[in-house]
C-alpha cells in the first residue's frame, strides 16, 4: 500500500501515513483522501500560485499567494521604516558578512531567527 507522505504535526513533524488515494499532480507525492485538495493536489502545492483554481477551496492560501505577489512586486514601500534603509545600511547584511563563521547566516538548512537561547 502506498502511504500519504504529507508532512503533519505542529512542533514534532512526521508523515501522515494514511493510505494514499492519489499522487499530487504538482509534486508527485502520494496523498490520502484527507489531504488531497480538489484535483488530488497536496496541501502545499494547492497553496502555491498556479495551484488549482478552486472556488470551493476552504483555504485562503491561493488568495494570499496572489495578494502577496501583487504587494511584493512593488516593494513594501508603503512602510516608512523599510524605505529608510538605504543600500549602505543593507550592505552590512549580506551572506558571509555575519559572525556565523564565514558561510553566512543564510542557507538552505538554516533558520534565520536572530535570537536564540
Amino acid at each position, binding site marked *: 500500500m502506498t502511504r500519504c507522505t504529507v508532512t503533519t504535526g505542529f512542533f514534532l513533524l512526521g508523515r501522515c501515513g494514511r493510505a494514499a488515494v492519489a499522487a499530487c499532480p504538482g509534486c508527485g507525492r502520494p496523498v490520502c483522501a484527507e489531504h488531497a485538495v480538489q484535483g488530488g493536489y497536496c496541501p502545499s502545492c494547492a497553496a502555491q500560485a498556479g495551484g488549482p483554481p478552486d472556488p470551493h477551496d476552504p483555504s485562503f492560501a491561493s488568495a494570499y499567494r496572489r495578494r502577496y505577489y501583487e504587494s511584493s512586486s512593488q516593494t513594501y514601500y508603503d512602510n516608512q521604516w523599510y524605505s529608510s534603509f538605504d543600500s549602505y545600511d543593507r550592505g552590512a547584511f549580506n551572506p558571509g558578512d555575519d559572525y556565523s563563521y564565514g558561510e553566512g547566516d543564510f542557507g538552505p538548512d538554516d533558520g534565520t531567527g*536572530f535570537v*536564540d537561547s
Partner: protein
Amino acid sequence: MRHRAAYFAFDRFPSGKGSAVHIAQMADELFERSGGGLLGVLGGGGLPGYQREGAREIVRFEEQIPNLIDRAEAYSAWAAALLREHVESLEIVHVRDPWSALPALTAEDRDYKVVFEVNGLPSIEMGHTWPWASPATLGKIRELERFCLDRCDAVVVPSRVIGDAVRRLGTAAEKVHLVPNGADLPGETARPAGAPDRYVVYVGALQPWQGIDVLLRAFARLGDLADLRLVICSSVPERRAKPVRRLAERLGVADRLDWRFALPHPEVAAWLAHAAVSVAPLTGCARNLDQGCAPLKVIESMAAGVPVVASDLPAVRELMADGEHGRLVPADRPAELARAVRILLEYPGEAAAMGARARARVAGGLTWTRSRARLAEVYRTIAPSDR
C-alpha cells in the same frame, strides 16, 4: 478559514533551536484559547509551505532572499498580506520580532490587539552578529523597536533583565509582562546511543556570545581526566561548526569531543539527563548583560536533573542559585569554569543533590504550564474573550 488569533515569527519553525520550543509553547497557548489560529513562520529546509492541522493553519515564508534586510522586508510584506486576509476576524496577533510586529501594527482597520514578545533587541543583537552594521544603521533598527514597543498593546519578556532593557527604551512599565521560559520535566530517558561513559554536555547554538571558546579552553585544562569527554549538541548544522572545530584542534582537545547536530528536542533531553555536568558558558558581552537573555539550556538542564555550571550573569541568576542548583562562575574565565566542573566531578554525591534540587526548582516554578498560564493572563488582560 477564519482565525481569531495569529502568531508570527521571523524564524524557521520547527527547528532544533531553543527558539522553536518557545514558539511552540506560546503559539499553542494562543491557539488553544482561540479555537485554532494562523501561524506565520519561515520555511525552507524541506518544510512544507502550507500545513493545516485541524483548526490551525501554518504558512511558511519561502522566498530565498540572501540579504537579511531585503528578506525581512519581503517577509513583512508577506505577513501584511496574510493579516489583511484575516483582519476582520482577528482578536489577538502575537509577534516575536519587529519584522512581524511592523505589519501587524500598521495594518489598516485593525481591531485586534498586538502582543509583542521581546526575547532580545535586534539593535543590540545584530551589532554582535553583523560586524559591518554601522551605529547609524543599528540606530534605525532601534527606532523600529521603539515604534513597535510604543504601539503594541502588551510586551512579553522572558526575563527581568530584558524587561529592564525594554523599559529603558521608554515602554510604559504596566505594559511589560514577565513570562519566563520553562521546561517540561522529562521522564526516564534511555542512555543515548554512542554516549561516552562520562561526559560534560553543551547544548545550543554556536555564536561567539555563547562562549564555546571559553568552554573549550576550560576543557583543555581538564586533560588529566582521560575518560572525560565533551559532547556538543549543536542546534545549528555541521558546516557552522568549522571555526569551533578549528579552535578545538588548536587547543588539542578535538579528539575528546563528540558532536551531535540539530538533534530532535527529545533526544537532547536524554543527552542532558545522562551527562555529569551541563555547561552554559555565556560570555559577559553587552548582548548577554544589557539586553539580557533567557537561556533555555539552563532551564532544560535543570529539568533533566543535571547540575549546571553557568556564567554568573543577571539573567542566569534569575533561574538558578550558586551552590544550590549548580555553580555560577565569572564569565569568560576558563580556569574558573574548569575548576567548577572538576569539583562537581570529584563530588558526585553533592553534584547529584544539586541536580535533584534543580529539577525540583523547575517543577516548583519554571514549567511551561506555569509560563503558559502567565501568558493566558496577559491575553485575558488585553482581550477579554467574552466579547
